[in-house]
């Protein structure tokens, strides 16, 4: 865990004052209790925790600052509470439900430490910006060994640069952001000028985090050179890829870094006084936090007519999407902001030449923008020293699916999948064998377990037949059927295709039909060949990235999971136990102990048997819901091919 060097001090009196204010708030003289209240925290019950904490602290007359923050990344452990006692390192507690909140408050009032919820401690310097050295430790700070949070498997090997403030600062508090080095980059940019900024971003080797990995410096240079008296910058916060949520994490946890990045970008491009953040409709809290941050920045003079007293004018507007995946595509996004249906148009002309309302426009992903202050703050050289040959810096991944520790992990480019899945993710949450990791969302593909040692960067993923995309990593265990997931992605792209080009509209429909037929047990011998033919036709014939990448799940199914596909088509068998027409559950008499767990769990009363005797499933009653398989502690319930006698059963539950 390398901290980001923030040794510089702000130069302007405004920032110096904000910094002092922020430092005082980050390390107050009373305990600072912060609670992760991003969307994920709230979904895990953080609102109840907040109410309970407040009541419990008040009830015990304990003086403390209660602060809402974003997400620290380890969503599996949410609600997450961080307690910083004056002069001591901060402690992190996990799964702090309302009840546990009371225990935390009781501890602060002099009671016992809720050890069961304690995850670890931060290194003192890491969390205080190196400014406030521990003085007299607080007597409440527990004695004995407490692991450093960065040594826990979930954080091991992570390099939290872009997410450095997430879960730590109050996202509505500009002073806290400045205390962490915020707006130092803008100050530098204003002092050294646009050419220097573009050069730094170029030398840092920053590539777009929205999917394609286009060099950001080159994009900015093109927009800078394009003729025009009015230009725009846009943050793409559409994050349409299901299973990926790092942009939401950044917007809810550290919105100022995105705003600062855009301000710097506007300065670099020149003639740019307006920026837009296009946020998807499903992220109301991100919109709210962003609007608060924009208002705060404007109030302080960091946005508006005269940014930091430099005479440079810049405004940011938030535009809400209305629920269309294709709007993440840059030309569709432009159409959508202009108030039209979000249909892509051919490029060139690229947005950097002809963008919003025909004017030069830079569109970057949220995470890309958030990298910009970091680069100027740490210097292009240090930034470029992290990562792999062609991919510099870090990447935030959302690690989800059948994995024990779900959350946002930020690692240097080039970290291996295995590290993320097995160390950070802590392995599988159900089942025993990793079958695949899916990257890049509907535009990406599956990687089989045999490729887990692949270093993750743009080139190696492309080489393996998938893409980085925005950074979703969906881990799939043996209870996931790859044919079914491919079908799922095709139903997604078919529904989201804007319908403008025939190959995309028709092809996704045809591929979906074939996959549906196969999953329903009607696979034909030539289906595999047909799938491949359609896949290439759609890939080659579509106008925009949606159509060009829609066949990727199919292609990687063919490439890596051909056996499973064959089993579906030829043997009419789904080994994962997902496609309901293609399997049945059976109980292995030798493994079954007759414990009765399945019998009690089955909602249909389909399981019979005497205690301590092998149980039996009544196939006529079974709906294949799988509840018994999850309930059996001995893995005695297995997926079997159907016998002819099963035909006609289970079809109409």
């Amino acid at each position, binding site marked *: 865990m390398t901290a980001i060097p923030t040794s510089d001090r702000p130069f302007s009196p405004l920032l110096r004052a904000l910094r002092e204010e922020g430092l005082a708030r980050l390390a107050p003289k009373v305990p600072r209790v912060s609670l992760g209240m991003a969307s994920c925290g709230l979904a895990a019950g953080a609102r109840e925790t907040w109410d309970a904490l407040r009541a419990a602290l008040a009830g015990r007359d304990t003086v403390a600052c209660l602060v809402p923050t974003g997400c620290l990344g380890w969503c599996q452990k949410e609600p997450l509470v961080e307690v910083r006692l004056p002069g001591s390192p901060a402690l992190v507690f996990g799964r702090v439900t309302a009840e546990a909140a009371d225990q935390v408050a009781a501890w602060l009032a002099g009671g016992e430490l809720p050890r069961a919820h304690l995850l670890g401690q931060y290194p003192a310097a890491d969390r205080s910006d190196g400014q406030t050295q521990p003085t007299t430790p607080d007597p409440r700070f527990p004695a004995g060994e407490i692991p450093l949070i960065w040594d826990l498997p979930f954080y091991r090997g992570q390099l939290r640069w872009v997410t450095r403030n997430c879960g730590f600062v109050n996202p509505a508090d500009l002073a806290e952001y400045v205390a962490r080095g915020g707006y130092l980059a803008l100050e530098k940019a204003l002092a050294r000028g646009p050419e220097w900024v573009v050069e730094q971003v170029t030398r840092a080797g920053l590539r777009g985090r929205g999917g394609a990995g286009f060099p950001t410096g080159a994009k900015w240079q093109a927009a800078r050179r394009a003729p025009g008296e009015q230009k725009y910058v846009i943050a793409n916060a559409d994050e349409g890829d299901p299973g990926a*949520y790092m942009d939401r994490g950044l917007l809810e946890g550290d919105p100022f870094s995105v705003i600062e990045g855009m301000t710097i970008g506007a300065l670099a491009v020149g003639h740019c006084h307006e920026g837009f953040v296009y946020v998807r409709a499903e992220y109301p809290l991100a919109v709210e936090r962003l609007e608060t941050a924009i208002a705060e920045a404007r109030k302080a003079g960091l946005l508006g007519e005269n940014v930091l007293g430099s005479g440079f004018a810049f405004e940011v507007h938030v535009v809400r999407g209305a629920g269309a995946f294709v709007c993440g595509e840059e030309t569709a996004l432009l159409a959508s902001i202009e108030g039209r249906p979000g249909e892509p148009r051919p490029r060139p002309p690229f947005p950097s030449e002809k963008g919003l309302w025909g004017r030069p426009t830079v569109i970057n992903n949220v995470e890309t923008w958030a990298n910009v202050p970091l680069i100027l703050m740490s210097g292009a050289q240090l930034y470029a020293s992290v990562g792999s040959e062609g991919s510099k810096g870090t990447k935030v991944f959302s690690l989800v699916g059948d994995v024990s520790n779900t959350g*946002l992990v930020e690692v240097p480019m080039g970290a291996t999948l295995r590290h993320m899945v097995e160390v950070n993710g802590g392995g599988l949450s159900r089942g025993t064998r990793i079958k695949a990791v899916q990257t890049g969302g509907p535009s990406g593909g599956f990687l089989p377990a045999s490729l887990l040692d692949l270093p993750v960067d743009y080139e190696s993923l492309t080489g393996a037949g998938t893409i980085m995309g925005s950074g979703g990593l969906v881990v799939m265990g043996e209870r996931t059927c790859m044919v079914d997931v491919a079908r799922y992605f095709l139903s997604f792209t078919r529904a989201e295709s804007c319908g403008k080009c025939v190959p995309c509209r028709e092809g996704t429909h045809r591929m979906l039909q074939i996959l549906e037929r196969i999953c329903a047990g009607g696979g034909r011998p030539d289906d595999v060949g047909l799938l491949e033919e359609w896949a290439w036709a759609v890939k080659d014939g579509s106008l925009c990235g949606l159509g060009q990448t829609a066949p990727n799940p199919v292609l990687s199914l063919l490439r890596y999971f051909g056996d499973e596909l064959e089993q579906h088509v030829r043997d009419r068998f789904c080994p994962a136990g997902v496609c309901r027409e293609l399997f049945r559950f059976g109980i292995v008499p030798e493994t079954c102990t007759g414990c009765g767990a399945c019998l009690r769990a089955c909602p249909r009363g389909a399981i019979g048997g005497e205690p301590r005797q092998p149980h039996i499933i009544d196939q006529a009653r079974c709906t294949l819901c799988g509840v018994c398989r999850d309930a059996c502690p001995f893995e005695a319930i297995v997926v079997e091919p159907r016998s002819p006698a099963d035909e006609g059963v289970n079809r109409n539950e």
Partner: protein
Amino acid sequence: MSASTSVRGISPPHPEEEEAIAAEAAAIARSLRDRPGAVTAVLETVQQRWHHLPVAAMRAVARELGIPLSRVYGVATFYAAFSLSPRGRHMVQVCLGTACYVRGGTKLAEALEEHLRTPMGQPSADFCFHLEGVRCLGCCSLAPVVRVDGRTFGRVRPQDIPRLLASVLARTGSLQGGDGT
């Protein structure tokens, strides 16, 4: 992604009602006409007001913004957030994104359809609830996820549904905002 046009158990509004809707929608359009991409913003506000886009309102919006009705329709039918037919009062959104799919989102969706006795994308018979599948609510780490009236619930099991919906009904009134802080 086109909005469903089937209307269940709803009679068309009376002419006076239509006039009132048109007047109010026109006022909304006027107040937002200077915003960038005004059409979408206007339709969003209209939808918030009536929980769908009444035809009279769309006509008024087109007139007020000085654009053809076909363009308003184009936008209204392109985006998933817009509905041309009335929706139930409480929005029940079940995530059908990849992470939720892998962790049993489909079974949750089936359980909701069964519990509310209504197919996906439709209001319940009494218009109390509206069931909708969405493409990821950004809480993938807590999959499977359900959002009811803007409040998001993670790690939901099918057996939790009755309790969850009952708790929402019990809190009616305090539910209008998002799940914000």
